[in-house]
């Protein structure tokens, strides 16, 4: 995002504000790590650090998708449904306990393509029918859950395919393959955001859509592409969850809709669009995962986690919106 702001010297005050915002989440991450290390001896071990990275893998991939949608200034509530559908589809297409199919990598690809198609539907509905994204994605989420329930059909498909199972169990340099996939995804998403037209336009659409449209850019296709790409990330996330769980579950993505939005917002990817990015969101993912891990080790009930996330997201949005309070009288 730097060149969008940096090129004009008159913006120096703004730039300082942006840099404080950029530095906030990493500092918060460090502080939380320090505090938890002091409170819990189990937390400050190398093994636990690796655990945290492994636990953050799926959320990091899902959040890559959410981040691009948030950069547009839209929102995506469809992760739960898209992941449910994708998880079931991959579970019945690779070698499994329910049927004789054994498509291997092709099965994984089909699941990701299905997820991308669902994302594409959300995008098309937003662009063509002008339905606000929170409504279209809520609808698409329901459709995805329906598809998942149809495929589930009362019998849980267990994953037998050894290569998919090894995603969650195989290790390289102490980290599971899932974590390495997540690292690749984050780097890829960062590359798209930083160096491709799609990423630059996504940022610009979130910043000032009217200006971009008046400049002669056809905004619609880029929006659809962003939603499609987000869907593909959810699909990959779902395949990763399925590998972790060892079977396809309708609810496998249930917690990720909210967790990914929370992570992105906490990391500094604002809901108003045009601010933040993949690396910001990834810091948010680590922050959230460290917090979850630390709270469990301190002995806080896992049921409290959702509540903590709920509070965090509201506080983070409020803090981000605070400087604009007097400008934005109308908030829907």
């Amino acid at each position, binding site marked *: 995002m730097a060149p969008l702001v940096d090129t004009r010297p008159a913006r120096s005050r703004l730039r300082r504000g942006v840099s404080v915002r950029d530095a906030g989440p990493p500092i918060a991450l460090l502080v939380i790590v320090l505090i938890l290390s002091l409170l819990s001896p189990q937390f400050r071990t190398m093994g636990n650090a690796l655990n945290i990275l492994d636990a953050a893998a799926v959320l990091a991939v899902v959040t890559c998708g959410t981040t691009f949608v948030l950069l547009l200034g839209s929102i995506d509530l469809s992760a739960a449904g898209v992941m449910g559908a994708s998880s079931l589809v991959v579970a019945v297409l690779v070698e499994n306990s329910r049927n004789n199919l054994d498509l291997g990598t092709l099965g994984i690809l089909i699941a990701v393509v299905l997820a991308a198609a669902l994302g594409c539907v959300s995008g098309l509905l*937003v662009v063509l029918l002008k*339905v*606000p*994204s*929170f409504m279209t994605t809520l609808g698409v989420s329901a459709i995805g859950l*329906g598809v998942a329930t149809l495929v589930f059909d009362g019998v849980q498909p267990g994953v037998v395919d050894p290569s998919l199972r090894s995603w969650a169990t195989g290790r390289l340099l102490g980290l599971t393959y899932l974590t390495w996939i997540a690292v690749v995804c984050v780097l890829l998403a960062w590359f798209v955001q930083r160096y491709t037209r799609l990423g630059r336009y996504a940022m610009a659409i979130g910043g000032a859509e009217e200006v971009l449209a008046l400049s002669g850019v056809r905004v619609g296709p880029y929006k659809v592409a962003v939603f499609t790409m987000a869907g593909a990330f959810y699909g990959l996330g779902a395949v990763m969850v399925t590998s972790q769980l060892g079977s396809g579950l309708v609810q496998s993505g249930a917690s990720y809709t909210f967790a990914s939005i929370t992570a992105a917002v906490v990391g500094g990817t604002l809901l108003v669009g045009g601010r933040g990015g993949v690396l910001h969101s990834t810091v948010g993912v680590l922050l959230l995962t460290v917090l979850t891990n630390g709270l469990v080790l301190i002995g806080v009930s896992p049921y409290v986690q959702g*509540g903590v996330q*709920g509070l965090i997201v*509201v506080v983070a949005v409020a803090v981000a919106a605070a400087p604009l*309070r007097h400008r934005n009288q109308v908030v829907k």
Partner: protein
Amino acid sequence: MSAPVTIRPSADAAVVKGGPTRSESLTSLMPVLALVSLVIALAAAKPGFLSQPSMTAVVDAAAPLAVLAAGATIAVLCGGIDLSIAALASLSSVLLALWLPTLGGLASVAVVGVAAAAGALQGAAHVFLRIPSFIVTLGGMSLFSSIALVISGAAPVPVTDDGPIRWGFTRIFDVVPSAAVVAVVVVAVLAVLIKATPLGSWITATGYSEPAARLAGIPVDPLKIGAFCVSGACAGLAGVLLVARTFSGGPTMADSLLLPAIAAIVVGGTAITGGHGGLWRTLVGALVVTLLRVGLSVVGVSAAYESILYGALIVAAVALTLDRSKVMVVK
């Protein structure tokens, strides 16, 4: 952001009958037409459908949904949305089940009060912190679910003595379900309150054009907080009705009602952009949604399609009722 033509059909359009333009009167009639055609189709598919027991069952099943959706309608009319209603109803059911042994009949009142306060708190966060309502209520949804799971120990809380809440699940004269009467009374009270006071025009004005409403001196902030407060209270009441029929409170009991409730609102013809719509429409919408669910099982379609149907229904209904003159940029 001005919408010069569409401001005209103000509060009058909220009633089911006739809006001034043809397309608006069409969308006003659509829910009723959908309801009538659904009833005819179901009666044709299953001869016994029009019998009294089956009608009673349908109306009874629609009641908690109608109560839940009625409150949220007011938030939508103001231009916001409340995604926390289902989670709040679940939390209310747990609270009611826990408080019934000690508080007796007062427990219902206390639960509705707590839910109203929770709604008002969300409204205040929305208004004073300038956070979009869907994100506040999404946060609220997560928070309420988590509170419900913690205080119930993540298990259903059984109700041993349901005497104090039996009013929520009986048959008046062995025919009319009391829950349906509660739903109609809630809608009627809210509708009359809105119609008889300036509140109606305030809500419509805020929904159609909030900046204009502010300039006109309408107390927009308290109005919105009030809307979310009513939405919370209705969610609490829906929770009470659910406990009355299941004899237990559950931390995820009402969670599956979020989509049907939003579907009921938008199928009724209330525009998600605010301003245009009404409470009676939501009542019709709740009946349509319930009949669709019943219809699916009558026709013999797998329940899995239900979720797909809700998703498609919501998007289609929002697309039809959307006030496109107001949305320059779709986010």
